[in-house]
C-alpha cells in the first residue's frame, strides 16, 4: 500500500479544531484580499464606465493636442469644413448625424454636502442623442431646442443640488429648468448636464465649440476620414474613434488607482503572510507526534509536505473567499470622484469581473503558499524517531 496523500478531511479538521486561530489568520488574509479586489474593481469600474461611453462607429474631433474636451476649441468655420466630409452618416430624413458641442465645466454644489465640484455641461441637440443610443430619457422629456431647458444624467440628478426633475439650476447668469433625467447605461454621460448647443454657446459666451462628434456611414472608413481631417491645412484638428478617446480619458485615473492599490496589497500581504506562517508553524509544532505517527504508518515526506501545504492553501482559500464576498458587496456602492484628466466629476460603480475574482483568489492562494511553505517543509524534514520521541 502506498500512502501518497493525506486525506483532505484530516486537513480540514485540523483547521476546524483550532477555530479561533484559523478565523484570525483567515480574517487577516480576507482583509488583504478585500483591499486587492476592491482596488481592481474600482479601476475596472472607471475603465468600463468610460469605455462604455464611446460608440465604435462614432468619431470625435478635437483641437490638435487638446487631449480633453474642455481644452479644445473648434471654430464655426472649421465646423463648416467638417460638415462637408462625405463619410458622415445620415438618418432616414437625410439629416447629417453630426453634433457640434460646446463642453464646459461648471462648479456646482453637491446635494448632500454642499461641497462644490465640477460638472460637465454639454451643449448638444437631438442629433447628439441619436449619436449616443445608450442614452435614454427615463424621467420627464427631452429639452426643447432654443430654450433654457436642460436634461441631467442620473448621477448628476442624484448628486447635485437642483439637478432633479422639475428643479432649477443656476449657472452662466441664467436659470435652467430640468425637464428630464436621462440614463446613459452607466457611461460617463451619467455625470453630465445636457442642454441646447446654441443656448449654451450664448450663455457661456463661447465663440467656439469644444468638439464635434459624428457617425461614420461606414465604420471601416475611419482611417480615410482621419487622414482627410488631419491633412487639411484649414483644420488644426485631430480625429479619434470615440471609443479610443474615452478609453484614454480613463487611463491616468484607472492606472493611478490600480498601481496605488497593487502596491498597498503587496505591502499588506506581508502582514497576512506572516500571520499564515505563525499559524502554520504552530500547527506543525503542536502535531509533531502526529507527524511521526503518519510517517511511521508509511506516509511519505511528500505526503506530509503536501498535507501542511494543503492546510495553508485551504486556510488562504477561506480567507480569499471571505475577502471576495466582502468586496462583492461593494458593487452596490455608487461613488464619484474628479477625474484629473478631465477635471470633472465622474460617477462609477465597483465592477467585479470573473478575471478579478480569479486574480483575487490566486493572490490569496499565493499568500497561503508563501506563508505555508517553510513550516510544511520543516514538518516534512523531521525524523520519525525524533517526532515519536517528542510526542
Amino acid at each position, binding site marked *: 500500500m502506498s500512502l501518497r496523500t493525506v486525506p483532505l478531511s484530516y486537513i480540514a479538521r485540523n483547521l476546524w479544531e483550532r477555530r479561533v486561530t484559523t478565523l484570525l489568520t483567515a480574517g487577516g488574509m480576507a482583509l488583504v484580499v478585500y483591499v486587492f479586489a476592491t482596488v481592481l474593481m474600482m479601476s475596472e469600474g472607471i475603465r468600463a464606465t468610460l469605455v462604455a461611453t464611446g460608440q465604435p462607429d462614432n468619431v470625435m474631433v478635437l483641437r490638435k493636442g*487638446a487631449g480633453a474636451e474642455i481644452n479644445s476649441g*473648434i471654430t464655426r468655420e472649421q465646423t463648416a469644413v467638417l460638415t462637408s466630409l462625405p463619410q458622415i452618416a445620415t438618418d432616414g430624413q437625410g439629416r447629417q448625424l453630426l453634433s457640434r458641442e460646446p463642453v464646459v465645466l461648471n462648479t456646482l454644489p453637491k446635494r448632500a454636502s454642499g461641497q462644490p465640484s465640477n460638472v460637465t455641461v454639454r451643449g448638444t441637440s437631438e442629433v447628439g442623442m441619436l449619436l449616443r443610443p445608450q442614452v435614454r430619457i427615463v424621467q420627464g422629456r427631452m429639452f426643447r431646442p432654443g430654450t433654457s431647458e436642460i436634461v441631467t444624467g442620473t448621477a448628476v440628478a442624484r448628486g447635485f443640488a437642483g439637478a432633479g426633475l422639475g428643479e432649477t439650476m443656476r449657472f452662466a447668469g441664467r436659470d435652467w429648468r430640468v425637464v428630464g433625467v436621462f440614463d446613459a447605461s452607466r457611461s460617463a454621460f451619467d455625470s453630465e448636464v445636457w442642454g441646447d448647443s446654441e443656448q449654451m454657446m450664448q450663455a457661456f459666451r463661447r465663440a467656439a465649440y469644444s468638439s464635434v462628434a459624428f457617425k461614420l456611414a461606414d465604420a471601416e472608413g475611419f482611417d480615410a476620414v482621419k487622414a482627410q481631417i488631419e491633412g487639411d491645412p484649414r483644420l*488644426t484638428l485631430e480625429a479619434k474613434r470615440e471609443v479610443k478617446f474615452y478609453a484614454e480619458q480613463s487611463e491616468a485615473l484607472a492606472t493611478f488607482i490600480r498601481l496605488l492599490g497593487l502596491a498597498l496589497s503587496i*505591502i499588506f500581504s506581508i*502582514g497576512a503572510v*506572516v*500571520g499564515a506562517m505563525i499559524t502554520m508553524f504552530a500547527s506543525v509544532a503542536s502535531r509533531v507526534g502526529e507527524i511521526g505517527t503518519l510517517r511511521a504508518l508509511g506516509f511519505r515526506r511528500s505526503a506530509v509536505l503536501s498535507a501542511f501545504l494543503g492546510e495553508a492553501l485551504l486556510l488562504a482559500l477561506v480567507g480569499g473567499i471571505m475577502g471576495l464576498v466582502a468586496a462583492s458587496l461593494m458593487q452596490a456602492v455608487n461613488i464619484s470622484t474628479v477625474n484629473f484628466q478631465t477635471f470633472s466629476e465622474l460617477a462609477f460603480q465597483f465592477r467585479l469581473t470573473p478575471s478579478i475574482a480569479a486574480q483575487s483568489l490566486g493572490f490569496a492562494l499565493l499568500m497561503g503558499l508563501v506563508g505555508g511553505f517553510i513550516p510544511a517543509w520543516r514538518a516534512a524534514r523531521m525524523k520519525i524517531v525524533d517526532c515519536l520521541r517528542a510526542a
Partner: protein
Amino acid sequence: MFVFRLLLKNAFRHRLRTLLTMVGLVVAISAFGLLRTIVDAWYAGVDATSSTRLITRSAISLTFPLPLNYAERIKSVEGVSGISWANWFGGVYVTERNFFAQFAVDPVSYLALYPEFKLDEADKQAFLRDRQGAVVGRKLAAKFGWKVGDSIALRGTIYPGTWRFTIRGIYQGADAKTDEQQMFIHWQRLADGIRARVAAGSSPIKADYVGVYVVRIHNPDDAPLVSQRIDALFKNSLAETLTETEKAFQLGFVSMSEAILLAVQAVSFIIILIIMAVMANTMTMTARERLAEYATLKALGFPPAFVVKLLFGESLMIALIGGGLGIALTFPLADAFVKAAGTLFPIFKVSPLTVGLQVLAAAVVGLVSAAWPAWKMSRIDIVQGLRHVA
C-alpha cells in the same frame, strides 16, 4: 523590575513567532504612517496658504477666464491692498509624467504678493527684463537638472504650440511648507502669443483674459466682507466672480479627490486591523501554550489579575517594539517614496501627529490582541489547567 524581566523572557521564548509578529507590525505601522503622510501631502497646498490672500475666479468654474480690466476695479474695493493675477499654463515638459504646475503671472505684483518665494535680487531683475524668461522652484530645478540660463520647451495643452522659456532664476521657499516645484512665466508673453494666433485666425481662445486674481487684504478678519464686495461688483455682469480665501480655494481642489482620500484613509486603518488579527492570533497561541503555567501561578496564590497583567504586558511590549521599529522605518520609506513619485507631491513630510497616531495604533493593537486571551486565562480552572500539563 522582576516582572519586566519576566515579560521580556516570555516575549522571546518563542523567538521565531515573536520575530514574525514584529515583522508584521513593522510593515503595518510603517505602511500606516506612509499612507497618512500621503493624505497629508494632499493637504499641503492648504497649509501653505495665507489668510491675507483671497482668490477671485469666474463664478462658472476655474476653466472660465476673467477680463483683464477687472484688476483695476478690484483694486479700488475697500479693504484690498494689492492685486495680481495668474493663468494656469498647463504645458507638458517632454512627457505627461513630468507633471508640475506652471503659472503665467504678472511678475512684479505676483512676487510682491507671495513673499514666500525667495528670489535673488539679480535673478529677479533678469526675470523681469526677459519676457521669455521663467522662474522655477529649487526642487523642480534639481529634479530636471536645470540651471539659470537653460532653455526649456513646453508643449501647450490649453495654449497650442511649443513654447520656449529661458530660466532666469531659481526660487527658494521661505519654509518647509512652501511649494518649490512651481514654474512662473510672464503673463504678457502668453497674452502676446495668443494675440498673434487670434490675428492669424487660428485661435478660439481670447487674449487679455486672466485665470484667477490674487487679492491681498489688509485685515484677515475682513475676508468675508471683502469677498462679498468684490463679487457684488460683478454681479449680473458678463463674467460673474466668486471670491474665497486662498485656503478655501485650495480645499476646493482637495475635496475633489475626496473619494480617493477617504479610500486611502480607510485602507490605512485596514492594515491596522490586519495586524491586529495576526497579533491576536499570536497572543491566543501563547496563552494556550502556557495554560499550565498560568494555572501553576494561580495555584501558588497569584491573583487572576496577575496573569492578565502578564499577558497585556507581553502583548504591549511586542507591539511597541514592533511599532517603534515601524516608525523608525517610516522616514527612509517616505524619502524613497517621494523619489519614486517624482513631482507628484511637492511637500512630503512625516508629521508629528502621524508619529503619534502610529504609537497609538501600536498600543491599541497590543491591548486588543491581549484582551480575549487575558479574559480567558483569568477564568481558567486551576485543576483543569494543571491537568493540561500531562
